[in-house]
């Protein structure tokens, strides 16, 4: 694998994460428990979809096959996606959605500022922009996790259940491959492994404050980041997200 292939894979991973999570979060639009949360979720989804345009735009540019970010988002099938399994899981209740958001935001809020120092100026520019948004997102999702975890008996129980459901998907963030080594070597992207301590410190601090017990099992699911085996949920999500292009191929706005 050369640097170009590694960069393409990296940009797809970043863009597919924000695309799939952005779509999942947007599913709440009009359904959130209160208006303020509805607006907050929609705004978060917008930021993520906006970041997707940059990352998938970069992936398309690196590929040099004349594709656009839209082509990559709407004309690929499940097996070509490189997002973490964590982001494609169904939303569940509001608590589980916010727990997942927190786990994702915590990682991004640490990763993006490092990527902003990338030797590739395109990566650095996107990360610089996105890191401001991630910092704002994690502030809100962490607050909500604490509010609900350290809330009523009912909300606490739901957040504990959400954490137990999602925790086995967190480890995939650090399931690295050759592309990560090449990019770290070239100074394009810090090695995901190097963020591990800081990530678990942050997550532990917030979950402790939320009075939640962190599962001790070290097993984790993988297969999204490397595209080997997505969950059955991604295909269902894509049939909805890509419906227009599937029903009317080539339709433009």
């Amino acid at each position, binding site marked *: 694998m050369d640097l170009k292939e590694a960069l393409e894979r990296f940009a797809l991973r970043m863009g597919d994460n924000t695309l799939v999570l*952005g779509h999942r979060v947007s599913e709440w639009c009009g359904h959130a428990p209160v208006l*303020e*949360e509805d*607006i*907050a979720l929609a*705004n*978060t*989804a*917008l*930021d*993520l*979809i*906006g*970041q997707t*345009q*940059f990352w998938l735009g970069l992936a398309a540019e690196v590929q040099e096959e004349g594709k656009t970010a839209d082509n990559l988002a709407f004309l690929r099938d499940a097996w070509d996606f490189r997002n973490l399994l964590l982001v494609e899981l169904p939303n569940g209740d509001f608590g589980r959605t916010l727990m997942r958001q927190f786990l994702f935001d915590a990682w991004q809020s640490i990763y993006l500022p490092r990527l902003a120092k990338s030797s590739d*100026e395109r990566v*650095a*520019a*996107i990360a*610089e*922009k*996105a890191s*401001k*948004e991630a910092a*704002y997102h994690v*502030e*809100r999702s962490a607050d909500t996790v604490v509010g609900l975890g350290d809330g009523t008996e009912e909300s606490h129980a739901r957040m504990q259940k959400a954490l137990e459901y999602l925790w086995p998907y967190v480890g995939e963030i650090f399931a690295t491959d050759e592309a990560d080594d090449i990019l770290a070597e070239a100074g394009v992207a810090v090695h995901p492994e190097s963020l591990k301590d800081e990530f678990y410190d942050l997550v532990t601090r917030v979950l402790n404050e939320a009075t939640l017990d962190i599962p001790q099992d070290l097993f984790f699911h993988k297969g999204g980041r490397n595209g080997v085996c997505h969950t059955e949920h991604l295909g269902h999500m894509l049939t909805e997200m890509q419906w227009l292009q599937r029903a009317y191929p080539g339709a433009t706005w």
Partner: protein
Amino acid sequence: MTNVSVEQVWDWLEAVPDPEMPVISLVDLGIIRNVGWNGDTLEVTVTPTYSGCPATSLINMEIETALRNNGIEKLKLKRQLSPAWTTDWLTESGKAKLEQYGIAPPQPSGGPQRCPHCGGSHLEKISQFGSTPCKAHWRCKECLEPFDYFKCI
């Protein structure tokens, strides 16, 4: 035909209102990063406020419309992400106009300084997100009115 001056173009852009907050112009908002001629093509560099701001494409369209109406034929809009937009680029007059309009301008402290309606200082945050990605939702405990606060980033 000679190219019009860059100053003239800035003046035209100064008259283009932000689509979401029409009291301030795109120049007040600080998103026009550069105006220059490349041969006979006018190049305008724009930076987005937020990655997913839905107004971005509308803003580009309004810039194009304003400049075409002023006779610009060859135009190129460039997107620039870095340095990332910051509320520090809002002009002082832009901040004053926002407050007059009922939107509390950004503060380095991370929250509004006073209620844009009554000037009260007992304020509470309702939600980190308001009517657009760039705003948060607050309430004044003195006049009890809700208001938008322009987030400081």
